[in-house]
């Protein structure tokens, strides 16, 4: 026989001013099974909790209903109080008579009646609660970081410095990401490589970090604390252990005219190559698409000349299987495909370039060694036009969102150009200047006021070539909307930042959600910005949304601290509100028929197949089994199960029916 205690809270005036709490307690006392019913001004206060604890002991309660605020607010408080009094914490439930009643209704008898109804419903549920124990799962204390840009580097270093193991996977031959391509960084104009490369070296040398460059994630299975990652280590065709990075091979390779991805297509590289001189690891890779040996079977110059005998044409991809406890996804962004705006002539005119290409031109390690020379003829441009919002905030042809980084880097571009070409003219076309951030607006003002960048508020309708000049047609919407034309020598498009092309596929591999722009979704836009909806997988950097360096680094440190928090425990404790497939005595074993509808609807891939065997090991039948580590207790499988073989602990079918019937 149930012995339920009901505790009605006034929450000061929050509930008390609208609901007659004493009457709710009075009405509740007559519900069958209720042996104790009281009201109190602040149930969550120390005396309030003491009231509950004493009643549990004195009245030998088998269940508790606290009628107060939302369980999101104080369920842990009251469950802890019950546990301290010796009652299983899952036998304590809350009736929400604040958000669901007093806050949304006028004072009156009906409101009091509704509060009493809510209590009655929960009493019926609690009668059917059974004691549950938190689930314990072990933790593999190794983190997998995907992406070796600044976010991945920061996350790896933070986790490694906290004493945990890290496996950093980068798809390119070197870590560094987009930041390695940048010239100077806003708002301080410190050289990007100078602040980045020491960190890259630190990653390579850190005893806790295993760097897998030129590698990609094949698949990820398992659950928080217990993931299994399969990683494809792409064949470099070079033995990394033997190679000393002497660069004889890259100097002697006869295939020298391959557009360099690192230089955004503005420079050339060889078929055996290191993306840039400061690469980590500083070990070359053979690009077999362009290698003469792989195309014709002849050449092998690199192999003949290598003093360490490290070239391995026969090397194959390798698949590594690694156990990890947490994943940090830091796979970065890309710039938009410029076919969005053929009117700007990108791809048609060599001197119309994008922001990333300009970074390479301005970089001391770039194809022009930091001199601003236009790609077509290598001349120093006398007039450069910068276009902000090339594709961003453009519902008709581009993307709806603001790419966030362009206002700042465009100001930097104009500034760098003026620093390097004193006689040059820099025009910037913009919609609005969005320079929110520490020292950001000051930076833009400096570009305009001290460095003389000419800011024109308006859009550009067309760019075309005439007599060796790029004619930029636009409008100045601040001065009466006059159309203006600028004869430029070079145009730089601040093309929109978009998700990387492989983002969607990766999200599906990781089983994390992503938005309509293919950026990965955080678990809560404000309060859980580094977690994903999949437990144990975290986000860092621009794979979540366009971000600048400081933001990426901050988020990476946030993700790292989440990983370290997770790794601070030997076992994970999870709420036991999960689904389970029933088991009965032979010869049935379970009412599950093995249709596996549940498997197809489970958003967390928590349904496994279990084969029941005889003692001799002969298979009898295959039924569903819920993996308690993966199940998030959403209940979708319960809803689709045709034979009611699955039920959800804490929210069982019988509990929910009882709640509904209590209202009838």
């Amino acid at each position, binding site marked *: 026989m149930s012995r339920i205690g009901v505790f009605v809270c006034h929450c000061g005036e929050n509930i008390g001013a609208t609901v007659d709490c004493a009457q709710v307690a009075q009405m509740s006392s007559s519900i069958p099974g209720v042996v104790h019913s009281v009201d109190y001004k602040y149930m969550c206060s120390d005396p309030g909790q003491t009231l509950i604890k004493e009643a549990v002991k004195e009245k030998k309660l088998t269940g508790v209903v606290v009628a107060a605020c939302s369980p999101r607010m104080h369920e842990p408080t009251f469950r802890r109080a019950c546990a301290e009094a010796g009652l299983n914490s899952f036998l304590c439930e809350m009736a929400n008579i604040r958000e669901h009643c007093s806050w949304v209704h006028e004072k009156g008898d009906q409101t009091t009646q509704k509060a009493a109804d809510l209590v009655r419903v929960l009493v019926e549920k609690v009668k059917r609660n059974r004691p549950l124990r938190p689930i314990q799962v072990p933790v593999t204390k190794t983190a997998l970081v995907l992406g070796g840009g600044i976010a991945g580097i920061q996350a790896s270093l933070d986790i490694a410095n906290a004493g945990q193991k890290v496996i950093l996977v980068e798809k390119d031959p070197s870590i560094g990401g987009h930041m390695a391509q940048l010239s100077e960084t806003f708002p301080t104009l410190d050289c990007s490589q100078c602040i980045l490369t020491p960190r890259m070296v630190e990653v390579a040398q850190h005893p806790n970090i295993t760097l897998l460059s030129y590698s990609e994630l094949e698949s990820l299975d398992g659950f928080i604390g217990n993931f299994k990652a399969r990683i494809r280590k792409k064949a470099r065709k070079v033995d990394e252990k033997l190679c000393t990075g002497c660069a004889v091979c890259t100097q002697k390779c006869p295939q020298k005219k391959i557009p360099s991805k690192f230089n955004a297509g503005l420079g050339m590289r060889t078929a055996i190559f290191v993306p840039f001189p400061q690469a980590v690891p500083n070990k070359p890779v053979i690009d077999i698409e362009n290698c003469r040996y792989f195309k014709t079977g002849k050449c092998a110059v690199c192999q003949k000349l290598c003093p360490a005998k490290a070239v391995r044409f026969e090397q194959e991809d390798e698949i590594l299987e690694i156990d990890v406890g947490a994943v940090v996804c830091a796979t970065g962004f890309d710039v938009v495909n410029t076919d969005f705006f053929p009117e700007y002539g990108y791809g048609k005119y060599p001197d119309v370039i994008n922001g990333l290409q300009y970074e390479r031109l301005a970089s001391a390690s770039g194809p022009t060694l930091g001199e601003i020379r236009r790609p077509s003829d290598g001349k120093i441009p006398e007039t450069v036009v910068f276009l902000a919002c090339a594709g961003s905030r453009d519902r008709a042809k581009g993307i709806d969102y603001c790419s966030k980084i362009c206002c700042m880097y465009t100001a930097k571009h104009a500034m760098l150009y003026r620093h390097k070409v004193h006689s040059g003219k820099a025009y910037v076309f913009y919609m609005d200047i969005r320079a929110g951030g520490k020292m950001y607006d000051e930076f833009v003002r400096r570009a305009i006021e001290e460095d003389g960048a000419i800011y024109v508020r308006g859009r550009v309708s067309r760019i*075309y070539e005439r007599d060796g000049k790029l004619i930029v047609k636009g409008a100045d919407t601040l001065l009466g909307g006059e159309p203006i034309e600028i004869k430029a020598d070079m145009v730089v498009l601040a093309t929109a930042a978009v998700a990387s092309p492989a983002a969607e596929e990766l999200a599906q591999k990781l089983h994390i959600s992503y938005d309509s722009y293919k950026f990965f979704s955080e678990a809560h836009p404000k309060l859980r910005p580094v977690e994903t909806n999949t437990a144990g997988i975290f986000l860092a950097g621009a794979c979540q949304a366009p971000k600048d360096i400081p933001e990426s680094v901050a988020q990476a440190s946030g993700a790292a601290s989440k990983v370290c928090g997770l790794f601070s425990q030997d076992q994970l404790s999870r709420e036991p509100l999960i689904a389970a497939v029933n088991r009965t005595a032979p010869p049935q074993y379970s009412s599950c028929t093995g249709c596996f509808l549940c498997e197809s609807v489970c958003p967390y891939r928590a349904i496994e197949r279990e084969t029941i065997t005889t003692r001799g090991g002969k298979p009898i039948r295959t039924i569903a089994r819920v993996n308690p580590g993966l199940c998030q207790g959403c209940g979708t499988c319960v809803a689709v199960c045709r034979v009611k073989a699955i039920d959800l602990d804490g929210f069982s079918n019988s509990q929910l029916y009882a709640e509904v019937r209590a209202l009838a």
Partner: protein
Amino acid sequence: MKVGYFPGCSLVGSAREFNESLQAVSRLIKLDLVEIPDWNCCGASSGHAADHLLSLALPARILALAEKTGLRDLLVPCSACYNRLITTVYELQANPRLKSEVRELIELDLKLDVRVRNVLEVLKEAMEADGSSRIAKPFAHRVACYYGCLLVRPPKVVQFDRPEDPTSMDELMQAIGAEPLDWAFKVECCGAGMTLARTELVAKLCARILDDAVARGAETLITACPMCHANLDMRRGDIEKAAGRTFTIPVMYVTQAIGLALGLGPKELGLHRHMVDCGPLLAAATQSSTVNLQS
């Protein structure tokens, strides 16, 4: 290929050579044009400035009459008519209340199930089906394809080609042996209906278009719009005054160029009706083909 045909006022007036050449070409490439009976003016450039409901009712009546013919496609060669008709379909499909209001006004059933199609789309299909093999005399000229504003804009309404860099006319010209040029003013405005009220503005805009085409070595401009043609051809005197220079480059309809390639004569195609003489261009063509014959 059988399609409904709405010529519109221009094609029976100032742009009758567009009609003549379209009809002549259609006969050769087995494009059967069924003229909509009792059609009316679409309202063109003034209707939508005067009254919104009127600007929808006028094209709606044409659409209703087209539906009665039972043909799925309606060819509308004039860009202005095309734009008004397709805008009407777009607006009325999105707004059922407005649609019933218009239906009451025109006193005709209106289902909006006719596909409004421009001359480039239809010609491309017909040429691919039955025209390319009939090319008798390749139109071997450097041409600047001029689309104007109304064929491709607004993009979400017309949903035709790439709005800022269309290629369908260039492809048609390539198919008849011409060399379409890459130039800057494919979709720039010619001034359109401002031709009467602000002639000097139209002259200035047209001068820029001609200037760029000539500078890139075009021998002729190709257009598919009666309004553009009128401005670039008929306003040549004003254009030259605005530019302070002369322009001898002719402006031809897409159908005239195709007609020449199919072996039709200049008269059948109405080339004699233009203000700017196409004679020198055709003579040059004859000469070069004679040279070819001799060599």
